């Protein structure tokens, strides 16, 4: 047994390598949101293309919906956008856009160029609603259930895998919950 003592530093080393290796695949930008399973913060915002119409969080009570934060200046949004346009064609749930810290004209032009997957876009010019939702990197998406509770947050662009393996099953589950309740 005593002769095996030289293995102790090796074991410690392997343990450290294990931790560091795991760390390679963790994304420090993905900060778990404290808003999951909390009521979605209330807001009342102008609609992007209809400045005299306001849209409130409570307008969506009773529906499962997706709030996607986007901006015309956001490069990763361009990557994500075609996926959202495609997903919106499935008509699984209403998708609303939150046009975050953007100019109205720039936002509208962007939607004109890249397609509009949203039922409506909400104009968050000063980013206050973004702060309430803890937005720190656009794009972000919030899946909100019929009771107005945030159930899932996608940080950064959706990938085809994230839509298939996370979003769609969860939407189906939440719709079932809404149907039963």
């Amino acid at each position, binding site marked *: 047994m005593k002769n095996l003592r030289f293995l102790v530093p090796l074991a410690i080393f392997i343990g450290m390598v294990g931790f560091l290796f795991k760390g390679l695949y963790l994304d420090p930008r993905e900060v778990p949101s404290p808003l999951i399973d909390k009521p979605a913060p209330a807001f009342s915002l102008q609609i992007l293309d209809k400045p005299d119409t306001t849209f409130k969080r409570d307008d969506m009570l009773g529906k499962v919906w997706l709030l996607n934060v986007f901006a015309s200046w956001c490069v990763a949004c361009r990557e994500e956008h075609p996926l959202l346009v495609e997903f919106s064609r499935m008509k699984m749930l209403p998708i609303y856009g939150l046009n975050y810290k953007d100019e109205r004209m720039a936002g509208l032009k962007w939607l004109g160029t890249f397609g509009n997957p949203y039922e409506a876009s909400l104009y968050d010019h000063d980013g206050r609603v973004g702060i309430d*939702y803890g937005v*720190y990197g656009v794009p972000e998406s919030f899946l909100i259930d019929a009771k107005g509770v945030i159930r899932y947050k996608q940080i950064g662009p959706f990938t085809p895998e994230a839509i298939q393996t996370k979003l769609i099953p969860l939407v189906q589950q939440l719709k079932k919950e809404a149907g039963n309740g």
Partner: protein
Amino acid sequence: MVNSMVRWLVLVCASLVVSLAYANEAAPASADPVLEARMLSITAELRCLVCQNQTIADSHAELAVDLRQQVREMLQKGQTDKQIMDYMTARYGDFVLYRPPFKSTTMLLWVGPGVMLVAGLVMLVLILRRRSRMPQDRFDPEEPEGVDDPYARPSERTLS
């Protein structure tokens, strides 16, 4: 010659304009220095989520600028430091705090270094005590017992 003078003048004017523009941007949004100091002391405790190794007080990211403004407004409304910290953690989680609260998930973070230090000290004491109990000649390099000492140089082995 005249041409180069004109060019030089234009350059000076341009740089003046630029520096003026920056000076405007850097001016604090609140004229009250006490409030500004409190705002800075609070935001120095908060992590900017866009550039994670900077505090909100230090960062030039747009979100940090907005959050500093938010803190200013909350202070103007007379809210306490704790209310502001709660506001931030409600939105961004404990991760925004450079000094996270002590709970079960952060236990390792807080206790870990102390545990490691104590473990190291205990090991050190144990090793030193064992050594002090060893006969003095164990530490004598001339001791000709190198035969079963794998670290002895070959020359020493042959001496025995």
